[in-house]
């Protein structure tokens, strides 16, 4: 089926299978592999994107549900070449190891900071509890959030 979707500011069309998830459409039909598939059950947050401004697991959204909607992916954050402050902070804090959870976490952290520019540690943990990371033990991700918050305010 033909799906029309605004991805990262550009209207695109994809001829996706009816059963396709938004994640599959982004990765396989629209050439945007930055959103990752680690569980396909909405448990890990690796596929986090914005759908009409709301943070969603794109593996749990049908491609068809995104028809005529606006989708933003991790690829939108460094469009002009410059890294987004959250991306910069993840590198600086050592919050990246294998990196598979990283795009989803960067989207989730950016979303959190857009609502709450200086979150407490407890609220960061609550907000990121849907994003699994198997490498870091999360300590440096917390550090990255604090660094990002400073960077975005400063």
């Amino acid at each position: 089926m033909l799906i029309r979707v605004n991805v990262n500011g550009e209207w695109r069309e994809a001829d996706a299978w009816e059963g396709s998830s938004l994640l599959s459409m982004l990765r396989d039909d629209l050439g945007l592999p930055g959103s990752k598939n680690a569980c396909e059950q909405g448990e890990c947050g690796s596929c986090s994107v914005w759908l009409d401004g709301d943070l969603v697991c794109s593996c749990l959204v049908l491609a068809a549900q995104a028809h005529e909607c606006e989708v933003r992916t991790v690829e939108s954050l460094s469009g002009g070449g410059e890294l987004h402050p959250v991306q910069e902070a993840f590198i600086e804090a050592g919050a990246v190891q294998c990196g598979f959870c990283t795009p989803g976490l960067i989207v989730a952290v950016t979303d959190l900071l857009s609502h709450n520019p200086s979150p407490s540690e407890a609220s960061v943990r609550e907000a990121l509890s849907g994003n699994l990371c198997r490498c870091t033990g999360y300590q440096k991700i917390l550090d990255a959030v604090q660094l990002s918050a400073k960077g975005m305010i400063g």
Partner: protein
Amino acid sequence: MSQRVAEGVRQGIGESVRRVDGIPKVRGSFAYGSDLWHERMLWGHTLRSPHAHARIRSIEVSKAIAAPGVLAVLTAEDVPGRKIYGLEFADQPVMAIDRVRYHGEPVAIVAAETPELARRAADRIAVEYEPLPAVTDMEQALDPDAPKLHDWGNILRHVSIVHGDPDAPADVWVEGYYETGMQDQAALGPEGGLAIPADDGGVDLYVTTQWLHVDRQQIAPCLGLPEEKVRITLAGLGGAFGSREDVHLQIHACILALRTGRPVKFMYGRPESFLGHVHRHPSRVWSRVGATREGRLVNVQVRLMIDGGAYASSSPAVIANATTFAAGPYEVPNARIDGTAVYTNNPPCGAMRGFGGPQVAFAYEAQMDKLARALGMDPVELRLKNALKPGSVLPTGQVIRGSAPVRQVIERCAALPLPPEEPRDERGHRDPLSLPGGVAGNVGRGEALKRGVGFAVGYKNVAYSEGFDDSTEARVTLSQGADGPIAEIHTAAVECGGGVHTILTQIARTELGVERVVLHPPDTGVGSAGSSSASRLTLMAGGAVQLACRAILEELGRRSGVAMPEGMAEARQIAVEGGQLIAADEPVAALEDLLSEPIVMTRTYHHRPTESFGPGGQGDIHVMFAFAAERAVVEVDEDLGLVRVVQIAAAQDVGRAINPQGVTGQIEGGTAQGLGLALMEELQLKDGRIMNPSFTDYLLPTILDMPPMVSEIVEDPEPGVPLGVKGAGEPSTIVSTAAIVAALRDATGRELNRAPVKPDDLVGLRAPAVSSGPAPIPDVPGPKPIPEYHGVGAGQQELMKSD
């Protein structure tokens, strides 16, 4: 001189240099195995056994072949070469031959135009199974009447260590029985690979793996191809933790690509990933520890078993590790330790971070706490009193030649500040977010909270043991680029996420005094790097890069006309600084004048030789050791069985920290995996079938489960190795499970002898694990893995010989 060189180059050894792959990873442009793509590529799919043990009466593929978009449907008959493979022993069919031995064993493979068409075609393969009685318990495998998994029986390996006088008496004895469950590595990036048929009849494979060359050694014979026609390049790995050591989809993808003449991609989904790789061995440990009244260990008696599942994988090496470490990082003058790995119809188990270490640390550290109680001693004091040190003799008779800062890791960990008590409001209530279970999970107000503190020490061998020569080759090129000199590094060292690639660039910068360093993708165009495992690559690949860099310095010296006495580079008498070649503290020539032709140097680093087990399990088995201590503070809600880990303090011995931020990242991440084994992670098996192959049902620690950590890096350089490095990946995983469960025991007073600890254990709804007594010692011909006595083809050993 060496100091001046190190200071002269930015981003060298000892700095928390940013990751070389950081920018693509944060942008989402880093290419993982699951992101691979090729024009006209087909999608592969694997049909797997639904049974733990069954005879295959027939396989009918005609309906599948006739399905739309299907190019090939293949079974064991279609494997062009050797039909079995294996990491240490070739005992595993590429696809099942007449019989399936575990739930998830590959039976047939399909290539089709889309993943969905491939899946649907696989559904149309008709396999007629005759279920057979299954061996699903590791002790049942020892029963002479149990079904036999293989022609040579159910014993995979038995290692027996006798040290001193194993009948030596002691003043005080403590006894214990301990179990750990089956843990999954759960690397977030699933298995992925792309095989592309080549014009020369060979194949180019891009794949998620931890060791390119050992893959090739297993793949090529199954394809009936010489090794040089199988070229492998690393695909981006979304973690590994041991789960990418064994071949998974490699042979399947190559066979389909060669058969169809088109590129074939495989990508496992999460449920298939749980079925498609090995897991951490479940364990049972029976232990008796004897000491003097003053708290000196006198005698340790341990019987331990691990469940290897249906095929060998790396079980022979895991049981060797578990057995040699079963007495803990302590001086023990007398010991008898017996370790057995068995085959069962459970899923195959193999490498996972810690490699036999976490299972025995869970037991030996619980025993140390029991002993401390029996003696009325402080548990940290008891550990200090018995701690290994340089010169100590291990139960294998091996003398620790190198660094062993066990006292230091214990003392520095114990000295880290404890977390404060949580604040309470005027009614005495805590912030609900701070309660075990949090707002969503805890329906109380903290009335039944108990706090506990646990301590654990452990250790791990670095690099491969028992006589393996797991060397690493590095090719380093120094040339003059448009903007100055450039060093290029080419190795087959796999970056799983641990940071070895960044470390290699740091070493090259410091050694060559050149800031611009480029890494080539790891592939089989250079010699073997050995595995990205056993905490070994910083030492091994770092050592190889250092050797190649020093050969380059010597060549620069020759080109400059300086007299080059042997070992000048090693003695740091020659170096590059500020674009000048410096020899014996004098500038000799400008670097660019010496680089009219690039310099290419290929060098191989070998660690010191070790020995295989001799009589009584004696021998110089391991290369070197890295130690860690952790202290866990927990809160338990005794009404609800909920746990909050409040803080973990760690001190870890790494020899020397090349990248301190990377080291603390390893300590923290390794600790989180141990926390998973302590509190939640377990593959649930029922009659050999995995019941929870998903992230909904297999629980991983989230950011709410993981507490703040305080970490100390202990640097006590290992003598006689490049840069004094050990490795950082595994020790924290080995100790954190033991420390957390010790804290739970401290909080609740319960025995808690099985990990993971479940809420039912904490409220008394589930009794401690019981055993009717130690498992019998099997009658085996010797300490080697049993398949070896039956002439079953070796895996890694062949590679070592060909080197």
